[in-house]
């Protein structure tokens, strides 16, 4: 039995026990349902085990040599290649992805830029510090889930931060308050006790709530008597009392808060509210944490920052980095690409139809280990290993702590890793005389 890290989500639980002979996984202990599913993917019935090439509009099995040659031929023809995904890959693979983008003068970005990356940019600019899971376990007496359904997206998060006993919180759950702000009664509401605060906000009205709370911070009795955003005045006062009275409060920012709003920046407004509360705070402070989904959602930020001083949206020309305001959405929207390489992601499913239909018009090279809608439209599919089970690598946890993932078993059919596939493409491009 060996202690392993689960790569089922960005919490990267490092207390999972795995019984394995190095060939098969016999049993997994300690993982949640989502984590168990990740381990089950090794033998999933729909797993891709052979390279595939589209011929006569159907995907057909091919040899690695043929698939790699076709990949390189497509890339060589491309003048504006896009590389996207990599949140389900190790940092080593992300590094290779950037190396490839530079070599082929492409644009590269990770899934983070359309999710939590936005919060990070704003938080850094406003000087608000983010916290770590260990700090939360040890210190937090208030946990606020705002637009985030932790119980389903990061299933063991609440076990760790709410039900645990930390160094300065020996009394554990009894003295921790949970507040949930969400229009939908999600599974996370089932963890609430009598002292906790459930706030079922009207959908899309978070901005109104934040603005009124900011006003109330400046001048008491600013809350209208009829309340705001579907919440009554007493609930809002209670919310503010908890926030300004906590010794160590954490706001987990979820997808529900990342929706763009007309004429205002919701995240900036929230950050300003946190700053105002922290100025008023006498006993402690409020801090933020983010809820990335994919296990290495944060890795690309660190790799790109260390290489080019930018968190994402890397655009190369003449093998140099360009300053650009473009992002993956604008690139696709403006059809400013002629070929795309997707690694461990399914943009045909995840993007709106207006974008996926544009992606479908240009050749798609897919590097992934599972079936997806993107696979149904790909020109070439290169199967890959499952990082953290069939290969090792570095990943950054949701609180930006680096965690080393270890290989547990050999991959089936000698499938290469994302890093190896990207390296093979780079080497082949170089030996064929570049792009």
């Amino acid at each position, binding site marked *: 039995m060996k202690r392993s890290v689960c790569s089922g989500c960005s919490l990267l639980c490092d207390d999972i026990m795995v019984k394995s002979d190095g060939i098969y996984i016999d049993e997994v202990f300690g993982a949640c349902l989502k984590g168990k599913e990740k381990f089950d993917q090794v033998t999933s019935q729909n*797993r891709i085990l052979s390279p595939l090439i589209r011929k006569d509009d159907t995907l057909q099995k091919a040899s690695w040599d043929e698939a790699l040659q076709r990949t390189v031929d497509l890339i060589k023809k491309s003048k504006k290649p896009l590389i996207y995904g990599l949140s389900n890959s190790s940092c080593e693979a992300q590094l290779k992805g950037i190396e490839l983008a530079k070599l082929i003068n492409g644009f590269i970005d990770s899934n983070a830029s359309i999710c939590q990356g936005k919060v990070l940019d704003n938080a850094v600019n406003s000087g608000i510090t983010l916290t770590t899971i260990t700090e939360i376990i040890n210190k937090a007496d208030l946990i606020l889930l705002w637009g985030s359904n932790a119980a*389903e997206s990061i299933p063991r998060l609440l076990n760790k931060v709410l039900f645990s006993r930390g160094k300065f919180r020996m009394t554990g759950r009894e003295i921790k308050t949970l507040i949930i702000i969400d*229009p939908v009664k999600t599974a996370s509401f089932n963890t609430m006790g009598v002292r906790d605060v459930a706030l079922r906000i009207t*959908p899309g009205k978070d901005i109104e709530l934040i603005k009124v709370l900011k006003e109330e911070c400046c001048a008491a009795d600013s809350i209208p008597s009829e309340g705001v955003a579907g919440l009554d005045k007493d609930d809002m006062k209670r919310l503010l009392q908890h926030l300004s009275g906590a010794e160590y409060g954490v706001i987990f920012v979820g997808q529900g808060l990342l929706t*763009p709003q007309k004429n205002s920046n919701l995240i900036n407004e929230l950050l300003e509210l946190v700053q105002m509360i922290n100025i008023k705070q006498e006993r402690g402070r409020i801090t933020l944490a983010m809820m990335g*989904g994919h296990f290495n959602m944060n890795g690309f930020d660190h790799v790109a920052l260390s290489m080019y001083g930018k968190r994402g949206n890397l655009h190369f020309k003449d093998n140099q980095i360009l300053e650009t305001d473009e992002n993956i*959405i604008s690139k696709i929207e403006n059809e400013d690409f002629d070929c795309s390489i997707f690694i461990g992601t*399914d943009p045909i499913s995840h993007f*709106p*139809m207006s974008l996926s239909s544009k992606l479908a018009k240009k050749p798609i090279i897919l590097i992934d280990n599972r079936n997806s809608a993107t696979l149904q439209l790909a020109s070439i599919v290169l199967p890959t290993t499952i990082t953290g089970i069939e290969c090792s690598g570095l990943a950054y946890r949701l609180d930006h702590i680096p965690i080393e993932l270890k290989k547990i078993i050999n991959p089936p059919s000698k499938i290469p890793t994302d890093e190896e596939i990207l390296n093979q493409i780079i080497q082949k491009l170089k030996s064929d005389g570049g792009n």
Partner: protein
Amino acid sequence: MEVIKTDFILNTVRRMENDQSKEFSFGDKKSLVEKLAIAFINPKDFDKLNLSSKPNLKISSNFGIIIVKGIADEDVPEGTVLMPISIWSNQITGVENSELRYKNMRVDVDITEEKINDLNSLINKIKEA
């Protein structure tokens, strides 16, 4: 025939029970439809729409139309339609100012006898758009 039409707010969410990656890994085309081509609405809206008289919901936004199965769920607020994030929900989400719009969008909801879109029909739609 009278057409019942109601304004709703669309929210798309991740749910473990309705997880697209899981269905692509372990399910088949039938389970993809069962788990993802669905929309949850409050039981009061379910009754108002008289959803038991026709099996499906036709949800239209500024960006597109999708036919899915309607399911009553008392945890969903009245006036909200909740869909699991998937290729189905993304037929009616969109882009504004180079930002994804996938939550808190106004949509029209009708009941319909039209067939639920399966994965192949959506892939073909994407290809032909």
